[in-house]
């Protein structure tokens, strides 16, 4: 029994799926680790959001017409982006559901869709940022620019890392390496993806809708 304690759940060929018996709490090490990490990520994004809130209206440099969020944001566009990301959470959940049922093909399809939706979101961000930049709001232009791009940039980086992981899972499944024993891996990644979505739920309201 002791080696089960040490092996990563869902990655070992010896470890059947859901072998959570070996731990004191009955839950898997990896899942617990992910939740602990997500708890710590709250502090990270909290700091970035707070910094943004503090600084967004205090710019004293840069073009006069680009000092505050209201001048710059395109809410309809961002709303579509937000909706896209929200739907990617749905497809992620469906991917997890599929692999729990042993339906690898469906899981693969949903993983790909999630990655696609995530990429669409990132594409939207890139488009949005280049539009702002063209208007004159760069990273170094003023406080608002620095704070805004840093916050959304961090979030975008989290999404991008997620997309890379999704693509890795997709490739693994094409090679036959993503079986039902890996259901927990997909589930744990799903937690990360939903968290990234949650952060956007916060950012969309706090940053965009309440300028």
């Amino acid at each position, binding site marked *: 029994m002791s080696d089960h304690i040490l092996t*990563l759940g869902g990655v070992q060929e010896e470890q059947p799926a859901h072998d959570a018996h070996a731990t*004191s709490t009955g839950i898997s090490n990896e899942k617990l680790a992910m939740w602990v990490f997500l708890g710590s990520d709250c502090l990270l994004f909290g700091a970035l959001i707070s910094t943004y809130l503090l600084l967004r209206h205090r710019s004293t440099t840069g073009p006069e017409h680009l000092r505050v969020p209201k001048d710059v944001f395109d809410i309809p566009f961002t709303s579509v982006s937000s909706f896209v990301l929200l739907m990617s959470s749905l497809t992620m959940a469906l991917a997890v559901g599929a692999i729990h049922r042993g339906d690898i093909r469906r899981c693969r399809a949903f993983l790909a869709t999630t990655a696609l939706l995530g990429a669409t979101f990132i594409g939207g961000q890139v488009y949005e940022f280049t539009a702002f930049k063209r208007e004159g709001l760069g990273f170094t232009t003023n406080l608002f620019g620095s704070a805004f791009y840093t916050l959304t940039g961090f979030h975008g980086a989290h999404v991008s890392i997620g997309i890379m992981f999704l693509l890795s899972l997709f490739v693994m499944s094409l090679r036959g390496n993503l079986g039902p024993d890996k259901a927990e891996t997909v589930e744990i990644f799903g937690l990360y993806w939903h968290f990234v979505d949650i952060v956007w739920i916060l950012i969309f309201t706090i940053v965009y809708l309440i300028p």
Partner: protein
Amino acid sequence: MAIVERPATPALQLPPGAAVAERPLGVFTRPTATTGWRSWLTTVDHKRIGIMYGAAALFFFFMGGVEALMIRVQLTAPDSKLYSADLYNQIFTMHGVTMIFLVVMPMGAAFMNYLMPLQIGARDVAFPRLNAFSFWTFLFGGIFLNTSWFLGGGANGGWFAYAPNTSVTFSPGHGMDFYALGLQITGIASLVGAINLIVTVLNMRAPGMTLMKMPVFTWMAFVTQLLLVFAIPVISVALVLLTLDRTFDANFFNTAAGADALLWEHLFWIFGHPEVYILILPAFGVVSEIIPVFSRKPIFGYPFMVFSGIAIGFMGWGVWAHHMFASGMGPISVAAFSMSTMFIAVPTGVKILNWLATMWGGRITFSTPMLFAIGLVTMFTIGGLSGVTHAVAPADTQQTDTYYIVAHFHYVIFGGALFAFLGGFYFWWPKVFGWILNDKVGKWQFWLTLIGFNLTFGPMHILGLQGMPRRQHSYKEGYGFELWNHVATVGAFIIALAFLVFAYNIIASWRAHKANPVNPGPDPWDSRSLEWMLPSPTPAHNFDEVPTVSHLDEFWHRKYAEDETGKVVRVATSEEAAQKGDATNVHLPSPSYWPLVLAAALPLIGYGLIFSPAFAVVGGITVLLAAYGWGLEPADDPEAHHAHAAHDEHDEHGDGDDGPGDDDGDDSPEPKDDDDGEVVAASVKESSDDE
């Protein structure tokens, strides 16, 4: 391939499409060495990692100590012109950064990594490779930070690095970039390590080991990890903002652009205050192990010790702005944080009283570990009392930025954490290495340390109240600072002498052991917790069989019981109650290169951000490749032979069979390996005997 030939039991039938072990990216084969220097580079054994943390901490302590002596030499006399103001700034900044991030934190990590799995009855931590990664990342981050000395100058903005002072305008040169990036790297190490140890404590306790049966040390380590996991992200953001300002011209701390000069201070101290509890809680844990053993009494008020530790963990989040009383943040903030700071003395007071109550009525032996532990109790109390005076905001306005503060934090960090860790070295040395440090020499070290320490930092209370400011490269004649500065410098060199005695003791005791090897046995101190149930040095596989725990101080209860009259009587000798350490073929997590490779890539990115983007690109690619290599590598090498030990719980038929990977059901013992009796249990195939 080995896997196909293993007789698979039904539970092991691979479902279609399940992973088959692959060579990671076809580049490196899995390392298999268990001895030699290469085995240390690829080890994932928590004990070796703990030893490496300890060695690194002592190495950095030497550097920080030299920096301290340089400060003291400069300040012995007024108007000293030994160093320029800028060089002095670098010296005191690097002294602080080194001592906090590269000495006390890793020293705590050394004890926590080595002991925690043993104290909960586990074979290793939850994620052994991640553990190795934490160590290497810390080490490379610390080295990276110190290369600043050769690459343009050390960080010079104080260990707290207040921005905007540390922005490019006021801190040109690369020193602060090394600071920001170096601490970012070590921060990753701490964060990842914290996640690892939290999962370990929650998930990997031996049967019967409920949370309230864990030793106090493990509890304090657990609270420390929880503090780390939530505090590190905050300083990470602060450091990112600083790096963005310095390297990419952002405006976060550009007051001319409208920035708030206090943003950095808040972010830093939201991390910084929990940080000081991160420094001290493991030390409190160490002392809570030592005092009961050398008083021959259980810890007084175990639940209070646990809950006061938890309380410190909670309340530590509510006091950070007491570092900012003189910052101009306004009277309401000052008043609020002044009050919260007064409250936080309470749980620590509970601990002090409990340690005293443990000693009261005990049969005390004043061995070196006990002396250092008592040292913490007394010295930390002094530091805590001056701390209480800081809580009174009007008084603090006088004290802040003076040597009174310097006195306070050295009493709690040096007199507290370091004293405890020194005691911990003496206490656990036999367990870790299989030989004892000479106690007589240890006592010399203790008294020299105590005297030197008090001579150095005691007078600083006076100097501070007389008005000597901190962080100034020299002071003028005529203020009356000369006498106590002289005394402090003498004290500092006595401390240095004490550490030379420590080094001497290590070498001399080792030599004595080599000349006349006498194993101290599993339990030289007649101790209480599970790590003492194992042979010294601890076997690679930790426990022969995972113990079932029914008491707090489980090992003690295996040696002692109460007779009919309620008297405590010995029922087993240490040797009888301890495990033999001779289990063979116990499955251990396999070594790996990837943690080392991934860790090495991080400073590359750092150099890239400071000097040339090419480094960063190489570093980034290496990170990606290493991450994939690591991810695709199975946690345990399936080509490592790993039949189960005879008594393993998995063994349903009692014939040493039934474990996964038991490819021949053969329980024949592997030969014992090393010449100093170290049992090598990681039974890795050297010749492929099943191809």
